[in-house]
């Protein structure tokens, strides 16, 4: 590793321009995130003794995620994973014909994200996801409970939003630079701008990988697993709701 973040190349006339992100950073990000999550797991294990009992999943159920949102989530999850795997395959030396899968997955992601944005604005409780100044006190005050989404969940959502939009925007620009069934590339983009797009796509990819790994980690943590279940089944129990949420802020309908 040479400790660089940006890789440079010579443009067609020999001047130095940005080529893209240094993929050495992939290992830096992977190592850093694994260390952080391992540390988190150890601390949680130490603290586990003092924890309250796990709320019961039995009893009455309330709706947490509409089926449309669950479908959106999993389509997005699959496309992001496919994008990460196909995008990193050539970097890891894995010889697969990755590019077509990559852009098709990218298109899927783009369409579902657009769908989600429209749906979030007009049909969902947009406010439930808003992150206000008061939310930042939540982690430090065990008495404070969130509404539908916790501070961490909102944080993850908005971080994901920024990163995914960055990946999509840069990805679409790069998509225009390759031949597809819809158009032939023009190679008309100045090389420095193209390099910048590759750099931003690479950086946002690294962030996306970090967030995705973190997200999967938390989704699989025992105390959060009911959220993952709710993303599959749609519901959580009233007990789980009472233990983790302030019902004055969030009063979902009972699940059928």
């Amino acid at each position, binding site marked *: 590793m040479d400790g660089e973040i940006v890789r440079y190349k010579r443009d067609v*006339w020999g001047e130095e321009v940005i080529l893209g992100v240094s993929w050495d950073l992939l290992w830096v990000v992977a190592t850093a995130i694994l260390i952080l999550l391992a540390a988190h797991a150890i601390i949680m294990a130490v603290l586990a003794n003092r924890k309250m009992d796990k709320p019961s999943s039995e009893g009455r159920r309330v709706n947490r995620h509409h089926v449309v949102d669950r479908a959106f989530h999993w389509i997005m999850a699959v496309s992001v994973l496919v994008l990460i795997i196909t995008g990193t395959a050539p970097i890891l030396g894995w010889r697969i014909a990755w590019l077509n899968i990559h852009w098709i997955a990218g298109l899927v992601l783009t369409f579902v994200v657009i769908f989600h944005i429209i749906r979030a604005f007009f049909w969902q409780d947009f406010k439930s996801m808003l992150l206000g100044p008061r939310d930042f006190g939540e982690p430090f005050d065990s008495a404070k409970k969130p509404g539908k989404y916790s501070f961490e969940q909102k944080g993850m959502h908005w971080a994901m939003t920024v990163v995914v939009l960055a990946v999509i925007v840069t990805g679409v620009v790069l998509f225009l630079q390759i031949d597809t069934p819809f158009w032939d590339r023009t190679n008309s983009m100045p090389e420095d701008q193209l390099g910048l797009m590759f750099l931003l796509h690479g950086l946002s990819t690294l962030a996306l990988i970090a967030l995705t790994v973190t997200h999967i980690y938390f989704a699989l943590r025992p105390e959060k697993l009911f959220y993952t279940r709710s993303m599959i089944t749609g519901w959580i129990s009233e007990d789980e709701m009472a233990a983790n949420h302030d019902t004055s802020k969030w009063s979902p309908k009972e699940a059928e």
Partner: protein
Amino acid sequence: MAYMHIGKDFVPQDAPGKVTGRIKYAEDYARDGMVYARLLSSPIPHARVLDIDASEAMAMDGVFGILTADDVYPDGEPDGTGLKVLTNEPTLIGEPILAVAAVDEKTAEDALERISVTFERLPFVLDPLDSLQEGGPDAYTGGNTYIFRQGFAQVKWTADQVAGFRSGTEPSAEAQQDVSFGDLGQAFSESAFVYESPFSTAGYPHMSMEPRSAFAYWENGKCFLHGSSQSMTPVAEGMAAIVGCPVEDFVFINEATGGGFGQKARPNSIPSMAIPAKFSQKINRPVMMRISREEETFIGGARQGFQGWIKVGFRQDGTMAALDMYIVSDNGGKGGGGDAYSAADAIVVLYQPSAMRFRGTAVGTNTGHRGAQRGPGQNQIAAIIAPLIDKAAEELGIDRLEIRKINAHETGDGNARQAPATSAYMPEALEQASALFNLPERLGRSRARSGSKITGIGIGQGYHDAGRSGMDGIVRLMPDGRLQIHSGVGNLGTYSYAATSRAAAEVLKMPWERCDVIHGRSDRHLPMTSPQDGSNSIFTNTRTNFGAAMDLLDKMKEIAAMDLGGSVEDYDIADERVYQTADDSVGMTFAQVAQRGIELGGKYSGQAEVPEGISDFTRLSVERLAGSALMGIYNDPRHEGNVPGLTVSMIEIELDTETGKYEILDMCSIADCGTVVHPQGLANQLRGGAVWGIGLAGYERHLYDPQNGLPASTGYWQSKIPTLLDVPDNMGTGWVDLPDPENPVGARGIGEPAMGSVSAALVSAISDALDGHFFGAAPITADMIINHLAGTSENAKALAQNNFRG
């Protein structure tokens, strides 16, 4: 006339060195303390150097310095197009910006990588028509063309005018050059067959085998420059000026040259050779500058490419009535040549239309610099006109050989634009070629099919004016009786420096082994002559050597008469003696005459009565030689008329319709170049010209990536110079061998037409095999033939230059 030397083969003195590899070219010399220069050349098609930071390179061990345009031109670079030694305003990729010198090439190359040059990128253009279009980019800062004595200018056409031309119609824009004679309208109205078509020909690089490497050092105020030129004294004189060294202190050394091809003829087309001289002066060390094959592509220059439109009219009897031609020629990155008018002139000389109009506009592009390449203009157009002559023959029901004879150029032929031919025997050349090639039989199998193969028969004609006059000659009869013939002719590989010297030996009836040709270094006191371009050498320099030898002969007879009695008329020479014709026992040996000449001094030894017209350069040589021998000194008067070099070539091919490839089964070339001086040399000229002509008609290319202006055809492989297996095993040669009255030994030149007629014959054969299809292009490559036959096409721009034509 029975000659002793003229028309006889001989071994030129440098031939053994070339065969054994012992002869030295510029790159083969060395000197104590020499250092090596490498060039940093422009990576950008059109730019301005804003800053050069060489501090890192200069700090390296073994680096001795850099040389920039500011060193070469302290008062600013010369205005106008034209090659510069080094430049801060490159107008083509590969143009030298600076040189760095180091203890070895590797260090110099490493140093180059540590030099940072900041460029301002400027608009560039690769196709003349793109530049002509309103709003199109200009190749130069200040315009897209340069007008002599006026400066840079912009020539622009409307978008419709450009589009119309590309679509094949007659260009309607006003041309820079508009030349005509006769009544064109009348001539076309008399025509039974009129054909008009757009056409394009490729410019392509010279690619001489020996690149323009140069080596220089200064010693005691004298500059010694080893270079690679096709000329000697004219380059020595001009290079001294470029280097900034008085001509008397400048020594140009160039005993052998690995090919010149037109752009090594004159100093202003090889100014890069001044780099080591300037550098050596700056760092006070001998400097060797090796030029790589790729660098040679850039600094070696290229032929002009044509974007043209031609209209020809033939009368029912087969005579060419009218020629109307419009050519936009590609001047490249540093200004170009006069190829376009020469193209029109060649058609006029070869086919003699009653009326002609030529319009031409030359436009710069940011591609290789352009200049004369063998038959500049004449040879490009030869490949275009030949299939049109065939078309006319077919349409008018005239034999293909006959139509050429009907229009043939003969002694005394001329027109309003061209002086009468001193002598010309085109009908004889056509007949001789036809007989040698057995043309009637071959024409019988024209277009015959065998499987996927079709036979094509081609006839081509070549022309170039081939002789100059007014130059100087120096010969010396040494005290030991040897004859020293001083030749200012360059050694470009044709051995003409030696062949032309034989005119002097002929006059003095000297055995060749008793003659020394003094050449190859300007400090050997050589006479000024014309550059070795324009196929002139054999005509020009047999005149000067003949004249100088006659002067020597007169002096010998004068001395003999003075010492032995009688008058000059009483004496003759033979067997290296001057003797009385009445009693051949009364005489002197050449050695004795020479010794007497030195004793007598004055005009005999070059100390007085030196001919007034000789050039300053020759005068300096004479001054330095004065007193050393009995000298013959001569300033040649001007000749009258146009001296044509004419060739006829015939080719039979078998074209494979499935691969677009063809095999040249047989070919021959016949030269009409007056009396033949050196048969082997002439045969080689014809064969070498044939290879080159095959290259023009079928292979060679000049490619630049349109988006970024990058050169694609650098080096031999990408330029597609024909190889041994692309040319026929057997190339028949022959010559008419009838003397020209304006030359004392009857000789005319032949170098350039030797190529043109072969280009013409090959295109004519390809066209014949394809039922007379007119591609309107040279070269015609395999892909073009396949596309024509398959009905496919490429995304090519019509008439594109520096690109594929599809």
